């Protein structure tokens, strides 16, 4: 029951060193083009993880990071900023960074639904898409500030999701799985056949403009040509930080406790005054809002979206990321997203086989390590506090 541990110097140093290693690793993965080298880097990483687990280094690192959460969070932001600086003119890398950040946001939203409240949502990509299409529609009106576009995207997603609330509240288990599954398919078909939203061909999304500055143009700072993606990556990073903070706070509050209780045992929850309907509504709505929020930004970054971006397969991918990372573990989510997004992009050899390999891996994971890469830890209500 020790409260706020004083940060040991070695712990701080260890955290910094780890952040440096991660930056170097990500840089290497992004820079290296030769497939052979990439394979080498990957194998090296896996080898390093295995060896360091053997000698207890992994647990030392995890402990140092866990000891001082504020520092670890700041370091994670620093790592991202460092990558942005290193790749300031590389559209491709910056776009991958955006994808990682925004997919993580969406999966964090799903985590509130599934990880905390136990509501399975097979239409994550649909709500992501509602946000995206909202951004597409709103981008025709240049006077709307970007931040408002994002929030409206989230709100519309939450409203669309509320259509499903009644069946979701009344059903449970597989019956409830069908509700969102049916919606995911319905949504995709709807987009495919609905001409006013571009049909199967998709629709353009105008870039953000703020005070007359168009986000779609490259920026020149001094003698450096900075990619137009940089502001977008920064915006994505801010969004992830805000959502991460929010979800973390939910977890470490009575709200998170109530959601956990609703997930684990509805009968006993109700015998201790917990309003099951209320918490399910809250969790489902927030999750969809967050998905819509990130979808709106993602669509603005892509500049062009089509129904193919928001298929049932994408919903499945979001859920698998959640499962791979470890349901309820926020860092696990981000790491799993990075792996799922980066690997097939960089490892072109497997590009064609990517779905095959990826679904096989998830399948094996569920059978042999159902808790995911980083299992959720027992709740502590204050950072650094532990048993």
């Amino acid at each position, binding site marked *: *029951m020790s409260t706020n541990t004083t940060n040991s110097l070695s712990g701080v140093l260890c955290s910094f060193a780890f952040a440096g290693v991660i930056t170097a690793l990500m840089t290497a993965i992004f820079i290296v083009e030769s497939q052979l080298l990439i394979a080498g880097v990957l194998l090296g990483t896996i080898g390093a993880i295995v060896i360091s687990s053997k000698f207890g280094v992994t647990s030392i690192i995890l402990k140092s990071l866990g000891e001082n959460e504020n520092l670890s969070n700041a370091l994670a932001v620093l790592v991202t900023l460092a990558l942005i600086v290193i790749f300031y003119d590389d559209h491709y890398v910056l776009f991958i960074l955006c994808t990682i950040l925004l997919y993580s946001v969406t999966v964090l939203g799903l985590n509130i639904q599934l990880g905390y409240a136990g509501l399975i949502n097979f239409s994550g990509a649909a709500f992501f898409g509602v946000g995206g299409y909202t951004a597409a529609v709103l981008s025709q009106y240049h006077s709307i500030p970007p931040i408002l576009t994002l929030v409206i995207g989230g709100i519309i997603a939450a409203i669309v999701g509320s259509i499903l609330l009644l069946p979701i509240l009344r059903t449970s288990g597989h019956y409830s799985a069908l509700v969102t599954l049916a919606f995911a398919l319905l949504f995709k078909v709807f987009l495919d056949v609905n001409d006013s939203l571009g049909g199967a061909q998709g629709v353009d999304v105008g870039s953000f403009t703020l005070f007359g500055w168009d986000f779609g143009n490259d920026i020149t700072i001094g003698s450096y040509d900075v990619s137009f993606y940089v502001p977008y990556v920064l915006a994505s990073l801010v969004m992830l930080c805000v959502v991460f903070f929010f979800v973390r706070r939910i977890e470490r*509050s009575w709200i998170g*406790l109530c959601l*956990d209780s609703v997930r684990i045992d509805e*009968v006993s929850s109700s015998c*201790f005054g917990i309003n099951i309907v209320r918490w399910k509504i809250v969790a489902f709505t927030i999750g969809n809002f967050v998905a819509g929020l990130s979808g709106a930004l993602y669509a603005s970054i892509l500049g062009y979206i089509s129904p193919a971006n928001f298929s049932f397969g994408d919903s499945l991918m979001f859920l698998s990321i959640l499962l791979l990372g470890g349901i309820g573990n926020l860092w696990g989510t981000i790491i799993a997203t990075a792996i799922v997004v980066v690997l097939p992009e960089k490892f072109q050899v497997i590009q064609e086989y990517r779905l095959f390999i990826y679904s096989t891996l998830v399948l094996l994971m569920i059978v042999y390590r159902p808790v995911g890469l980083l299992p959720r830890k027992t709740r502590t209500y204050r950072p650094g506090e532990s*048993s």
Partner: protein
Amino acid sequence: MSDSLLQCTGLTMHFGGLAALSDMSLHINKGEVLGLVGPNGSGKTTFFNVVSGIYKPTCGTVIFDGKDITSESPQAVYNHGISRTFQLSRLCLELSVFDNIMIGNHKRLSRGFISNIFSRRKFNEEYEDGLKRATHILTALNPELANRMFDVVSELPMIDRRRIEICRALISKPKLLFLDEPSAGMTHEETRQLMDEILNMGSYAKGLSIVLIEHEMNVIKRVTDRCVVFNFGQKLFEGTYSEVIADPAVQEAYLGKEVE
């Protein structure tokens, strides 16, 4: 009757064709420990479930503390001051001891987003308060357990889980506590210990009324003021422990096996 806390009249609960409770009338006085005994399937747990709002009774009324709480939701019943444990332990095994106990403390916790997420002042006060209360009760039950407040429940032995369930039920300072076979899965010695602990709760149990379902007649003898014997969903007999075991009808229905 003036100091009766809970008054049930004509409670009946049908599951399809089966009458798990029929025309059950009983009352519990303030500060009393009432024992419920009866053979398996005689409707004791169903009685708890009906009063605590999990099942809606087919007919009958439940008056608690002067208010009609028949067919109210479990949430409302909890807020009126009735708390319970379950026959088959229903703890959240993957959560910590503290988390489980705080679920029982739900009444005192704020649920708003402002106080939980943004300004944490109120949350922190509630947290400190909850931790103090939980430590207080757990220390009374078992001081060692109080040191394991942030351990996961699934790592704890059965008796500690029972203690946590009781702590979860007690922390909201209920007026009436339902204990459904707290001794299930424990040895005689452990049961005795646990009952002693409950009766020695001090400030948390002052004026508390308890309804105890128990098969272990020694426990009934030691802790109850009065007993009600259930049989086939009906009240077979009501009286003190010595009256109960002296009654021939009870002996036939319930203790029959032992007498033979």
